[in-house]
């Protein structure tokens, strides 16, 4: 395990929509959980029989004063086990382990105005941002696109709390979020934050760039759901371990399953913590991360095992 961890117990588990479950967790030893900043995530470690599952989830709200932690978990349509496990097996009293909060999607505190854009479950970090900005009386607006109100977690809550500052776009009612129009009327010094499906993030950022927004004012949370792929052989040169990376397993999970400690933080291909040196690759490395530069990916000397894998026979890592 990389970094500090906290042993927690689930004290409330509630289906807030047919596909989203909210978990509320407190420290098992009764200690105060550390405060965190909006945009932070935590990595949940769950034991499913023999298998250890680790998934990253954004922390809801922002407990600037410390307190219970809450996450909202969407049942992924093609879950590799994590979200399905939460939905099917995690209830009140269940014991889990969390990483300390890590923030890879922080607010820029020097912004004059904040435009928050969320699609679907992407509301989890965005809602925390609204919470924190409201607390410090910062200027913001929140645009939240959902399929229908029943599926949009927190729709009622947000409208109640932030009133005029929240706009809801329900696609079943033919309401469309026109980001271009929203960005057109923003003052200089505005920062944009977007979290949602990959396609939505791409469109929002493209609109902003077309309007000449500087890269440093654009912020996106693009956790990749670590997806599987064809199995391949793995050899760890230093540890002398040989194993197989299964089709539903990530490279990092296979390393952990072999009993080897490897560093990690976000498990979503963005933070860079799990970077490993490649000794040799019999096949083509399938880089899926947002961390390595194009040149680094082409060179093939490094891999981010939390999301990337090999299309080929055998990968040898310097671990």
């Amino acid at each position, binding site marked *: 395990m990389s970094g500090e961890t906290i042993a927690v117990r689930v004290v409330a588990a509630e289906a807030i929509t047919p596909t989203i479950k909210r978990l509320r967790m407190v420290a098992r030893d009764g200690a105060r959980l550390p405060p965190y900043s909006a945009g932070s995530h935590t990595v949940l470690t769950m034991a499913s029989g023999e298998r250890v599952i680790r998934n990253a989830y954004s922390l809801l709200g922002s407990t600037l*004063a410390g307190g219970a932690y809450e996450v909202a978990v969407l049942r992924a349509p093609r879950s590799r086990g994590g979200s399905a496990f939460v939905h099917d097996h995690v209830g009140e009293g269940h014991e889990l382990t969390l990483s300390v909060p890590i923030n890879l999607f922080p607010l820029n*505190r020097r912004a004059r105005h904040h435009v928050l854009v969320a699609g679907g479950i992407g509301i989890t970090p965005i809602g925390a941002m609204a919470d924190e900005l409201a607390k410090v009386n910062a200027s913001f607006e929140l645009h939240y696109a959902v399929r229908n109100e029943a599926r949009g977690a927190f729709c009622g809550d947000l409208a109640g709390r932030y009133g005029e500052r929240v706009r809801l776009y329900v696609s079943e009612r033919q309401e469309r979020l026109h980001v271009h129009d929203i960005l057109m009327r923003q003052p200089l010094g505005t920062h944009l934050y977007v979290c949602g499906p990959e396609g939505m993030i791409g469109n929002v950022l493209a609109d902003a760039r077309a309007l000449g927004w500087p890269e*440093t004012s654009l912020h996106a949370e693009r956790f990749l759901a670590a997806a599987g792929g064809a199995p391949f052989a793995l050899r760890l040169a230093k540890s002398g371990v040989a194993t197989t990376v299964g089709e539903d397993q990530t490279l990092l999970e296979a390393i952990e399953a072999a009993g080897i400690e490897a560093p990690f933080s976000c498990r979503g291909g963005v933070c860079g913590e799990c970077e490993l040196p490649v000794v040799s690759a019999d096949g083509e490395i399938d880089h899926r991360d947002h961390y390595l530069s194009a040149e680094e990916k082409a060179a093939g000397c490094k891999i981010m095992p939390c999301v990337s894998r090999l299309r080929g026979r055998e990968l040898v890592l310097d671990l």
Partner: protein
Amino acid sequence: MTIPFKTETFRDDFTFSNSEAAIRRFPFPFDRDAYMYAVNIEQHMPGPAKSATEFPIDIDEHYVAEMADRDLVLKADPLRCQSLPHMMTAEWDLLELLMTSMARDYPEHFSLERSGREWHWINRPLGIDQRFTFEDPATLPLSPMEYITRQCQGDFCLLDQRDDNLWMDAGIVTTQADWSLDFDLGMNFIEWHGPVPLAHEIGVFERALKFLLNLQQGRPVRRLNWTMTINPRLDTSPENYHRWGIDRTTVTPDNVGDKVHLRVELQALWRLPRSNAIVFSIRCYLIKMRELVTQPKWARRLHRVLRDLPGELADYKGLTNYRETTVAWLSKYDDGAPTSPGFHPD
């Protein structure tokens, strides 16, 4: 254990000195007989009992005198303490870190009672008893950062994290080795390290920045840095260069032992929880050559390090004027015997 706080000065008559116990706990920075830059960062884990790293925040016999010196510096130059408006959350984070650490590790000197947001802080050595509301600046006599750092040894900088960089957007800096907060305020990590020679070429700062951007809550790190100072002066700032620069020309073979000091900075970095900022603490330790040579291993090693230091580094650290005289003086304590590995005295 009660610390016997000393009455001493770091200016004018320079009465500062280290007790025998303080010499033994001095954080000697060389683990071998040569020195070159490296990303020498390690976890800020508790060190051995009575060492400078036993606790995350080290309070020692110089505490009361150092706080009095800080007050003099701030009275003469209020710009040594500055904070940009977006750093208020980080200031509260820092106050919490320092108060909780000091009260936990030195309960005979400091205590903190918390009832929700209502806090009660007692600092016995400085005679302070303060009730206040956490996150309500109107309830403290000074801003949270200035309030608590006037009661804690070491300089502190608050680094905001944005654009994949760290920005020095707040700090209190009164015991510095010739750098200026007023000059560096608002700069990013690469900018404020601009003047350092050699290290850029070997990629030290890019690697260190990448590492720090991923620094986690609850996992602070530390490193040691060093230079030398003539007379035990804490405030060797560019602002006051006209007062201390000339001291470098006053070293003679007869006064090396008392005038020349090894200056070590125990630098630590913590991720702060509410602000996602990083606090960079720079705690200065001074030791006279006469005190240092009471430990034969340190005497041999410092002699070799100073003798063999690359010229660019000696210039950057400002040692050039008195290096030769100091090396000659230290050579009397170096019989050429091998030194054992590690920092600690034999």
